[in-house]
């Protein structure tokens, strides 16, 4: 898609790699069927959730044990073959897109919940365990795993760790990094390493947090010990409708400023509300310009106390319609519209492109206004669905890839939105990661010194740049080209 990107997607040992020796060694490590070489067999893995970036790998491996993962990494290291880890492939930044000259390491067969300790509220899981499968498995103990990406039915814990994924409950309970105690990873040399521990704060530098969000560039996660939370006795969901997105944005800032931190606080704009309502028919007010979905949790007494304050605050800021869910079924329905927002938007447009900038809450009104101006400028519709409490925006750019040039326009619009987020003091990605997709904006957010520091850090783990090369951290050459384009 972008000539700059392709330039960095080259194997470091070009010409030296002996592919057939590599493959036969790989076949000795893994059972028949776990090494995929055919185009048809590898087709399902050619992209992640950001489907506009596609690439078939040289070979795909599906290990079932940690020993196999270690052996594969050693082999890749020995042969100097690039290696891309992959979970469920639901990522939205082309982080798991295969490398043309490399191996794709699919971790979904390492899918065991190794241990649940309901006393300490912790679980030890393999990386291929699906996020929702974990929450379902611990439900009998009255527990759940708090980070809940909308993709939780499919995405894996390994992918969540690699992206530091969040979800609608992250406002109160944090992202993956805040819910993790320990990670076991395999280094590119095939060495096993445990970061973090059974306790809360281990001595020394926080390597565990460094590993979180490292997008498969530093090591392969083969086990994670996560925190679980007790289910709150009472969960209350309500929605509030507004005539302008600015009013809804102000209500969010006021609520948080007052010291009320709901379990979740989401916003949808008019286009997203209509699309969701058409899709799931839960009774969202389709005349509203903005909808807030708020979830409170705690003991009965706590929830009652907060509910009064929230309703008062929402009304004060111009909510013209507030609906309080009467029971669990209605609460689930109100959430369903939000959780299905991406596919709902997918129904009203042939393609959509999801952005992930995060901004200070006070800038929500301004940024949404700017986005609608940009939307008019590019002639592409934008639906906004987002984690309002955290200021994490998900503008969905609607386009039609079959129309010549529209994809490029969508990308330009997306790029403008990301730089807008940086300009107001925010970031280009709140939870989806940089991957291949947001490489062009990395030099916009970071200076040369920071980028060089990232590269040196990467080299400390993987000096030959074999792990997920060409992603997340732009090379020096890439940055120089970027800067000369900016000034040229």
């Amino acid at each position, binding site marked *: 898609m972008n000539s700059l990107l392709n330039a960095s997607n080259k194997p470091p040992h070009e010409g030296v790699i002996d592919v057939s020796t590599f493959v036969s060694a790989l076949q000795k490590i893994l059972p028949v069927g776990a090494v995929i070489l055919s185009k048809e067999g590898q087709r399902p893995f050619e992209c992640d959730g950001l489907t506009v970036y596609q690439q078939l790998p040289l070979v795909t491996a599906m290990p079932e044990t940690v020993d196999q993962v270690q052996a594969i990494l050693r082999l890749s290291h020995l042969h100097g073959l690039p290696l891309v880890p992959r979970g469920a492939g639901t990522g939205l930044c082309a982080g798991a897109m295969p490398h043309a000259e490399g191996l794709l390491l699919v971790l979904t067969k390492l899918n065991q919940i190794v241990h649940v300790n309901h006393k300490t509220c912790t679980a030890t899981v393999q990386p291929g365990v699906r996020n929702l499968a974990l929450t379902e498995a611990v439900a009998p103990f009255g527990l759940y795993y708090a980070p809940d990406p909308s993709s939780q039915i499919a995405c894996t814990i390994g992918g969540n760790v690699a992206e530091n994924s969040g979800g609608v409950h992250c406002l109160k309970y944090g992202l993956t*990094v805040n819910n993790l105690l320990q990670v076991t990873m395999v280094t590119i040399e095939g060495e096993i390493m445990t970061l973090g521990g059974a306790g809360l704060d281990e001595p020394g*530098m926080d390597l565990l947090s460094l590993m979180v969000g490292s997008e498969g560039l530093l090591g392969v996660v083969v086990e994670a010990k996560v925190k679980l939370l007790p289910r709150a006795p009472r969960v209350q969901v309500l929605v509030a409708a507004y005539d302008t997105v600015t009013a809804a944005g102000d209500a969010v800032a006021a609520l948080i400023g007052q010291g009320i931190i709901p379990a979740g606080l989401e916003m949808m704009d008019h286009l997203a509300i209509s699309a969701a309502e058409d899709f799931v028919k839960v009774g969202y007010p389709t005349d509203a310009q903005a909808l807030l979905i708020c979830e409170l949790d705690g003991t009965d007494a706590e929830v009652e106390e907060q509910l009064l304050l929230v309703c008062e605050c929402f009304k004060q800021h111009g909510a013209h319609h507030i609906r309080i869910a009467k029971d669990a079924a209605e609460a689930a329905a109100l959430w369903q519209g939000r959780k299905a927002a991406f596919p709902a938007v997918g129904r009203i447009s042939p393609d959509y492109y999801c952005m992930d900038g995060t901004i200070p809450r006070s800038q929500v009104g301004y940024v949404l206004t700017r986005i609608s101006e940009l939307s008019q400028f590019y002639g592409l519709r934008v639906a906004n669905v987002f984690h309002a409490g955290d200021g994490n925006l998900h503008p969905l750019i609607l386009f039609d890839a079959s129309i010549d040039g529209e994809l490029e326009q969508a990308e330009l619009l997306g790029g403008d939105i990301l730089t807008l987020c940086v300009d107001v003091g925010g970031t280009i990605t709140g939870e989806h990661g940089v991957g291949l997709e947001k490489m062009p904006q*990395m030099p916009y957010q970071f200076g040369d010194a920071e980028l060089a520091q990232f590269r040196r850090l990467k080299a400390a783990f993987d000096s030959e740049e074999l792990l997920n090369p060409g992603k997340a951290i732009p090379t020096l050459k890439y940055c120089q080209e970027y800067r000369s384009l900016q000034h040229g």
Partner: protein
Amino acid sequence: MGDLTVQLEQQIQHAYATKTPLKIRGGNTKASLGRETSGEAMDMADHSGVISYSATELVVRARAGTKISLLNDLLAEQHQRLPFEPPSFAGEATIGGTVAANQTGASRPWFGGVKDSLLGLGLINGYGEVMQFGGQVMKNVAGFDVTRLQCGAMGSLGLITDVSIKVLPEFKAGHTLTFDMTIEAALEAMLKWANLSLPITGMSHFKGLLYVRLQGGAGGVASASTFLGGEKLASKAAEIFWQAIREGSFLQPRHDQTLWRWSGASDTLANTVPNTSLINWAGAERWVLTEALDTPLEGLVQYQGGDRLAEVYGAISAPQQALQQRIKHAFDPHGILNAGRLYAWM
């Protein structure tokens, strides 16, 4: 008080050029933590002051030398607080040192540690390059998490120049309950209660009493209090107790004593950590005060006292040691920043 970034940058650049070891010092309240080191003093206390504070955004950004006590006062004016309840060590502890030494109070299991509130920081690496990581927004996954990496690094990867921290509203109500309990009974009770989604913000056991702190909205606290029972502690006494827990003042080792810290799973049996003097964090942190100078206790960190030239943080695996050395080199190639403070080999 003021912005000394330029001087600090020059001092490190000079030290880089001359390969001079530097010893970073904030309020000098943590000299007894980590290993004993030497080097040219790098004083941070004057590099201080709040850069920005937005009560509605729940974010405060301050220079590294800013005192915790000053931040607490500033936040209290807006009815807010630092979520990780760091010690202020007689008002002298600085926010930079707090992050570097990863200092968290009693609310750790419920409101997280330093890393859970840390949004971004400024760092000068061992080349003398001024850098910014993270930011002031709640979620940020662009680039590696160099910000959180600094927690517990004891200044060995860079000089922290400023930090951005997420703050939270003060609790509207709260009180502390006490229960007459042995260590064994207290560990069991803490495990059970931690599972119940109650507004608990502290559970510590000291001298035969289990202390349970409840904080939150008035209604939530009152109903949890009725549910748990126990004795209600007078508010002044409760304040003194939790302050002592936060400041570590119950267990100050004499010159011939050593204070050990154990960190692990909260269901670990009492006899696994014999002679525990104090239990914090609902059982996940335990403290042992010994008379002997340097008998190393297996798996425990030699927190204060004893031989400060020993590997006080214990040993780590060979591959991880090699990795940490490479990371150190990536930030500080000449090893001039707090050399040996964390490990002799770093």
